[in-house]
């Protein structure tokens, strides 16, 4: 760091989420991982758009998707994003109990989302619209299923996080992990915007 930059920082130090300077490299590494994950999702979106009209005389999007169900899933995920945000804010003030409380709320919302998605998948498969039926359904289950799997792993991650915070307290390594987990969670909500904008809404239209 140059002398000029150092003196500029002396007057005003910006407090970031995360574990501080020592963990910046890991947090950048995690950001790079998220970018590669974004590329994976982008390709699954491209595959879906290419395949969406190939219904092979099976059921089409309009007969399978339900606007209310999708709206419910969207609301759960959006609420879980803001409750994770409240956990992040509480971690800035080192309020351990509050962080754990908001993380528990986030888990409940995340589990609710996964449960809604599983019930949707089970219902579709029961009415003969499983992934083997057509190119459209293969691409649908791959894209939405990959996102659901990410959310499920996020829920497991938050559960482990709560254990760490309870046992170790809000130390710098724990805060860095909480920050990275938060990036992951908020990133999944962004992917979901893509899913309802590309898959559900045009499908129902």
């Amino acid at each position, binding site marked *: 760091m140059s002398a000029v930059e150092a003196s500029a*920082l*002396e*007057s*005003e*130090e*910006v*407090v*970031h*989420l995360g574990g501080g300077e020592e963990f*910046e490299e890991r947090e*950048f590494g995690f*950001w*790079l991982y998220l*970018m*590669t994950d*974004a*590329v994976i999702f*982008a*390709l699954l*979106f*491209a*595959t879906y*758009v*290419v395949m969406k009209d190939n219904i092979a005389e099976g059921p089409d999007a309009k007969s399978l998707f339900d*606007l209310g169900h*999708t*709206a419910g899933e*969207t609301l759960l995920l*959006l609420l879980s*994003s*803001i409750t994770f*945000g*409240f956990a*992040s*804010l509480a971690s*800035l003030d080192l309020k351990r109990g509050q962080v754990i409380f908001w993380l528990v709320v986030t888990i409940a919302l995340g589990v609710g989302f996964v449960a809604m998605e599983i019930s949707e998948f089970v219902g579709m498969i029961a009415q003969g619209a499983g992934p083997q039926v057509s190119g459209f359904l293969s691409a649908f289950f791959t894209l939405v299923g990959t996102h659901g799997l990410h959310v499920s792993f996020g829920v497991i991650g938050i559960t482990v996080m709560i254990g760490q915070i309870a046992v170790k307290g809000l130390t710098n390594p724990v805060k860095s992990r909480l920050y990275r987990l938060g*990036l992951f969670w*908020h*990133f999944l*909500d*962004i992917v979901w*915007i*893509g899913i*309802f*904008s590309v898959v559900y*809404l*045009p499908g*129902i*239209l």
Partner: protein
Amino acid sequence: MATKRHVSTHTHRAYLTGFVLALTLTAIPFALVWMGTLSVLATLVVIAITGVIQMLVHLYFFLHLNLTTTPRENLLALLFACVLIFILVGGTLWIMFDLHYRMM
């Protein structure tokens, strides 16, 4: 002595602002699809626009991305990912729909 300053979006107010904006930007396309007042093409355009704006809202309010406090390399990585996604998705759709057109 350094004075400590939070990133401007590290407040409950910022999260709630982001939440209300995201909720509005979700409600608009859902309501349009539900009511079906606009033409299909116009609805698709609104879905695309509100979707992109909502992604930016999430990046700014929830991932705290901005042009002053976010490290430059994080922004470059995001920009690079956007270029990759543009080439990969754009290229895929271009090739496949062109193929589809020629096979008809």
